[in-house]
């Protein structure tokens, strides 16, 4: 039965979403239908996680040819790299349906389509298939922000759409380049990533294609300096959409780099790693500093999310097992902490009709459970020991120092900025004096508390017992790093010999 688990996880939400869009449903009915579908996906996800052996190679593989003349196939699979991203995409979704006042059926339909496409992008092991899901993913986001967003939604929608489409169309050229290179080197067409990793690319076009891939993913992550769409889109989107964007979609950007860019472009990746890791660190600092200055809570969190995505990206660019494992772990940790914070903000906005930090205060006295949950998620987000955030960030910084001490130092320093703005915001919103607005702030009701409780427990569990998670992702991370190191070193060795020859001639 679980042979087709991945296909079900992709197409059940998509079909359900289309059905919601096309057929008449009441608001409540759409919400219940969406909730049921997302819970089914959740159980499939948990089952998959338990059944996942973590030996290294792909599991739950599905593969059948689709367009044979170009070697495009419908192939899916999960390994240690995609496992936790997939979990983020499948486990967190029911929360979106159970919280907040009901919206129109179109909104829930779009949410479901977004989930299906995201799961598809995470599971696809064929580049073209990945690209297709990657593009489908954007459409529901476009409509969710444009139709249901805040007052300035139109510019925000245009910004995110044009940015991401520009990036992904460039990536399309890169994908085709990779496929054609494989065809010319091995004489057959394929877009399967396992086959493509045998490619031996070089020259100016390879660097161009590499940069095209990287720009597409950098826009999605978003990596400095491609982050400018983020504050507007995150702020104007409905809170549950912001949650989806921050908790899952941004992660697919990082995941894409690990899955598709690193195996194909080992040499280029190694060459540009320092540049990109600097971009990651700069983004961390810049967005962190920008977050301090924000007056709007959601905008503050948007910058904070971007800042933390910087460290996750940094972990990928460091190219060692610790940092990569840390990044993969932090993907899940960030989804459960920073992502979930957006849901809290959404609840506050629904209750207070404002997100302005200056208008709030003293909520902790009125709503102790809300404040406690918020505090745990926030502390995980800043990386307090005992929470999930600590493990990931610790591993990444460890790896970063191994990679380059200076970058590691900068990354460690910029974490302090994160603590600054978060705690300061927490103090202003939850402590200090309450005003007439916050006077009658209602605490979490039973449904809401039950929705958040599993995630809060997960944050603590991942912080205290990280081993079950790390155990499943580390073998694949080691495999990946071993592969990259082997091929870069052989190629670098070639290069070194060549250049020394050159030198001797000169001398």
């Amino acid at each position: 039965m679980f042979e087709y688990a991945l296909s079900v996880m992709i197409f059940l939400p998509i079909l359900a979403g289309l059905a919601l869009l096309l057929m008449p449903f009441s608001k409540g009915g759409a919400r219940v239908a969406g909730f049921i579908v997302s819970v089914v996906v959740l159980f499939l996800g948990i089952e998959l996680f338990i059944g996942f052996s973590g030996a290294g190679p792909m599991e739950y593989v599905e593969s059948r040819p689709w367009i044979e003349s170009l070697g495009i196939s419908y192939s899916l699979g999960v390994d240690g790299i995609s496992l936790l991203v997939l979990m983020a995409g499948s486990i967190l979704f029911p929360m979106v349906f159970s919280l907040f006042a009901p919206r129109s059926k179109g909104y829930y339909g779009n949410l479901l389509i977004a989930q299906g496409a995201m799961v598809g992008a995470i599971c696809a092991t064929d580049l073209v298939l990945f690209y297709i899901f990657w593009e489908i993913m954007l459409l529901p986001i476009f409509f969710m922000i444009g139709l249901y967003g805040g007052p300035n939604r139109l510019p925000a929608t245009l910004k995110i759409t044009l940015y991401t489409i520009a990036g992904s169309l460039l990536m399309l050229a890169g994908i085709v380049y990779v496929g054609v290179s494989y065809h010319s080197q091995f004489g057959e067409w394929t877009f399967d990533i396992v086959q493509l990793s045998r490619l031996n690319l070089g020259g100016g076009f390879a660097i161009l294609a590499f940069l095209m891939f990287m720009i597409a993913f950098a826009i999605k992550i978003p990596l400095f300096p491609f982050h400018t769409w983020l504050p507007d889109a995150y702020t104007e989107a409905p809170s549950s959409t912001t949650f989806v964007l921050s908790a899952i979609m941004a992660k697919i950007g990082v995941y894409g780099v690990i899955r598709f860019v690193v195996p194909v472009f080992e040499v280029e990746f190694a060459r540009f790693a320092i540049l990109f890791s600097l971009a990651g660190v700069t983004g961390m600092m810049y967005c962190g500093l920008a977050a301090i200055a924000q007056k709007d809570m959601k905008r503050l969190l948007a910058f904070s999310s971007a800042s933390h995505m910087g460290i996750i990206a940094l972990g990928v660019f460091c190219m060692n097992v610790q940092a990569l494992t840390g990044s993969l772990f932090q993907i899940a940790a960030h989804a459960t902490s920073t992502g979930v914070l957006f849901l809290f903000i959404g609840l506050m906005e629904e209750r207070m009709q404002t997100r302005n930090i200056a208008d709030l205060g003293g909520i902790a006295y009125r709503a102790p459970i809300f404040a406690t949950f918020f505090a745990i998620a926030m502390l995980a987000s800043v990386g307090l020991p005992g929470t999930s955030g600590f493990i990931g960030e610790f591993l990444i910084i460890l790896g970063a120092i191994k990679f380059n001490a200076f970058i590691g130092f900068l990354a460690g320093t910029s974490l302090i900025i994160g603590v600054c703005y978060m705690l300061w915001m927490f103090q202003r919103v939850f402590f200090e004096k309450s005003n007439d607005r916050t006077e009658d702030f209602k605490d979490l009701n039973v449904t809401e508390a039950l929705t958040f409780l599993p995630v809060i427990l997960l944050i603590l569990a991942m912080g205290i017992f990280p081993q079950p998670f790390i155990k499943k992702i580390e073998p694949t991370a080691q495999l990946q790093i071993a592969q990259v190191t082997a091929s870069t070193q052989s190629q670098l060795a070639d290069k070194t010999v060549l250049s020394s020859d050159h030198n001797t001639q000169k001398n």
Partner: protein
Amino acid sequence: MNDFLSLLPLIIIGSGAILLMLVSAFEKWRMETASYIGMGFIAAAFFMQLFVTNIGETVLFKTIFNGMLVSSSFTTTAGLIILACGFFTVMNTNTYFRVNIFSTLEFYPILMFALCGMLLLTMSQELITAFIAIEIMSLAIYILVGYDRSSITGTEAILKYLMLGAFAGAFFAMGTALIYGGVGSTKFAAIGAYYATHPANTPLLIGGAFFILVAFFFKIAAFPFHAWVIDVYDGATTPVTGLMATALKAAVFTVFANFLAINSGMHGSWMTFLFYVAVFTMFGGNLIAIGQNNLKRMLAASGIVHSGYLLIALVAISSDNFTGSVIGYYLAAYAAGTLGMFAALSYLGGEGEKRKTFEDFKGLAKVRPYSAAAITVFLLSMAGIPPTAGFMGKFYIITSAITAGQTVLAVLGIVSSILSMWYYLRLIIAMYFHDAAESFETKGSFFATASTFILVFCVFAIGIYPIVI
């Protein structure tokens, strides 16, 4: 026998057109009846063409026609596209003419003569046949463009199109004459053979090839012969514009590709020229499209851009094993999307095409969600977003370009499609993110609506199940 079968779709359409022409003499027949008869003949021809697809490459009536006509999988595919476009156009006109009453029965036979010319054009392997086919097609289209005599824009459109089209025809005839002077034959194969043995370009050949390319560029609206498209598409009645944008382009591109593919010497020597024409066509078209406020004008300009993409495929043609699959697939994908847009405009446009600008379609999604969704699908297909047919088409074109070593052209094509997102998104935004100012009531039959939704299905079907490749 196979020769006859391959020609049968053409014969069916031709005899149907003549029959309808005779019937038109009777005043009592109604427009709808004529449209049903037209649909019947086109559908019959379509299924005949579908049956012929399996036959493979044949030279039709070699002894009688002296190898002037060749039927291959590429030409039958193009024939299928053209006939399907004709069928949907007749469906659209059925609805359109119930609201805009100016047409007479002769409209349908003329439309079928145009289809006849197009089918003949796809099969022609010889310059004079191609010239005759182009003229049959063009004369019929001229009449269709100017059918509404009371419309001022229509009259302007036919005047411009006729004048410039006559020039293009003259260029084609001149080019044929020069090539004949240089080569001693007008057959594509003979020209190709001559090029292969005589690599040195004589002035006659350069001049002849140049004139023929100019005529083709004019018909497909490539830079710098694209300026007429905007006014002509705008002035023509909506269903006719749809036919011009899809079937006509498919026919001309098919013969253009056949002409270049067999003629690798000429293709090689004009490669750089084609490269720049493709680039300028894409970017020139985008530049025009971004500034448009009128939907038909925007679609005309986006048609120019798509011609540019098809030119990329022409640059990347390899003569060794030419199957035309890339071009055929892109033509089908483009036709489904564009014709869908015109089908939707045919019934949403209303009386006297009163809804025509971006503003007029504001809030469509609030009132008619299904129509708005259909238009969105067409626009996404034209923009090349998966999982629609347009994406697969673009994917094949880029793949063929990079395989042929034209990486720069492929990247420029991508940049151009990023630019084109702007005007496609603009309509989606207008439809979805604004409130409706009017009720979007439509009159007339359900045929145009039906063809819109069939085409939505086609867009996905062609994209997800790419049968041609």
